[in-house]
């Protein structure tokens, strides 16, 4: 695997491979000595153009547990804030010997631009690009669902027949997009719930069901209910009138938590707006996987870094899977 840019072009086989290797990584995290020497001598650069302590720390922990060296580059106050281009920033890091670049950027497509530009030879991991994708988040979400469902017997299993409902600002959510493609590849059935203003104008081609009514979605008894963080700035662009109305119609309040099946899990990528999209009761219930998601995030990111860095440069095709581009017939 040369880069991990998205889940849309990730095959079912590759996805399962990452999840299964993550199981092995998780096992090592149970030992007294949680470190592995596997990536000793490799350098992983965290290139974060957007603030994100949680994801950055998760990648840092993953890299360090594989004995890789970690360099953290935060764009705030750096040369980037003075106008240095993505190209120059990337090439500077490469000149410092980066073997992998974990990039979080506010512009959708920036990791792909970085990976295909020819500016650097390092492998690229997308840690979240604009509103496009966040592949390791989707992978850790799938890992968590699988683990809760199959326990120690998770290896090799997909999510065929598992129903997952994702609630929130789909339009602006890279977590939602990555989850839609990955869950579909693993055989799960996905339902999206949001106010109409926060669903993209044309999702007719997506392998999902779209509902505007959260109670209707919960009545269908999903195996996993994933709540997304709502950004209050959206209120100013007229996506919904008030926090209160959003919470009332699309928040996971105690009543809805009770209506949810006893075996259903409640998920949230964090950070949570307690009381807005998710009640404290839901966040702290035994059905909530919020903290496991964080732990699993390290295992999944260890797997991703291992698969990207451990082997020799792939002798097969190096380029990221070409995205389907259809043009007008001549």
């Amino acid at each position, binding site marked *: *695997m040369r880069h991990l840019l998205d889940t849309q072009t990730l095959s079912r086989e590759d996805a399962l*491979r990452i999840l*299964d*290797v993550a199981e*092995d990584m998780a*096992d*090592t995290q149970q*030992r*007294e*000595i949680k*470190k*592995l*020497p*596997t990536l000793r001598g490799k350098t992983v650069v965290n290139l974060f153009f957007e603030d994100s302590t949680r994801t950055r720390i998760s990648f840092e922990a993953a890299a360090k547990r*594989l004995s890789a060296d970690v360099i953290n580059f935060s764009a705030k106050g750096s040369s980037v804030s003075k106008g240095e281009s993505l190209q120059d920033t990337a090439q500077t890091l490469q000149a410092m010997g980066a073997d992998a670049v974990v990039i979080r950027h506010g512009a959708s497509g920036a990791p792909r631009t970085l990976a295909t530009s020819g500016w650097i030879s390092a492998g690229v991991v997308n840690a979240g690009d604009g509103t496009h994708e966040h592949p390791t988040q989707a992978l850790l979400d799938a890992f968590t669902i699988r683990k809760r469902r199959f326990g120690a017997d998770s*290896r090799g299993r997909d999510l065929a027949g598992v129903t997952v409902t994702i609630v929130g600002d789909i339009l602006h959510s890279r977590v939602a997009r990555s989850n839609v493609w990955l869950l579909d590849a693993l055989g799960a059935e996905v339902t999206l719930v949001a106010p109409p203003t926060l669903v993209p104008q044309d999702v007719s081609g997506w392998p999902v069901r779209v509902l505007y009514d959260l109670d209707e979605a919960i009545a269908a008894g999903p195996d996993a209910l994933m709540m997304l963080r709502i950004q209050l700035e959206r209120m100013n662009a007229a996506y919904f009138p008030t926090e209160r109305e959003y919470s009332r119609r699309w928040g996971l309040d105690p009543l809805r938590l009770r209506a949810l099946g006893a075996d259903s899990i409640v998920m949230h990528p964090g950070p949570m707006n307690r009381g807005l999209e998710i009640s404290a009761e839901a966040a702290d219930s035994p059905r909530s996987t919020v903290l496991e998601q964080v732990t699993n995030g390290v295992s999944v990111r260890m797997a991703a870094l*291992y*698969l990207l860095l*451990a*082997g*020799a440069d*792939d*002798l097969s095709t190096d380029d990221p899977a070409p995205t389907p581009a259809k043009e007008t017939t001549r």
Partner: protein
Amino acid sequence: MSTRIVLHEADIARALTRISHEILESNKGPDGLVLLGIPTRGVTLANRIGALVEQFGGTAVPIGSLDVTMYRDDLHRNPTRAPQRTHIPDGGIDGKVVVLVDDVLFSGRSIRAALDALQDIGRPAAVRLATLVDRGHRELPIRPDFVGKNLPSSREERVNVRLNENDGSDSVTIEGR
């Protein structure tokens, strides 16, 4: 390219029987033993040896597997491999006599990696090495405690171990120029 059968099914069975007796003899019985096979075929062999040790020694002996992929020192020279299962039996390895089981001992690097892996898992009282075939050409100061067959070979030759559980039949062959 010529292929020569070095061990037939019966030879393998005899070798494993002898190894099992030797393990019990050197340990003065089955107590404190833990067999850890190195995937893939080392695990199969560990299971067979474990059954024999139980048969001769009278007590079941814990059997597990130890994957060494993450500890190899030559990862960057080969395509990425998916790691295999590491299963440490209940009871762990602290204070135990761990017998590593592998099918072919060659450069010794897999065993070095296995020793590193063991170190991160616990502190055994002792570590022994059982191998079905020792084909020489060691690159590290590693020696086996229990050997099925010493097989002098040249570097260019390929030694193939087939086991019923993995490949449908039992044999050890050497393939040369």
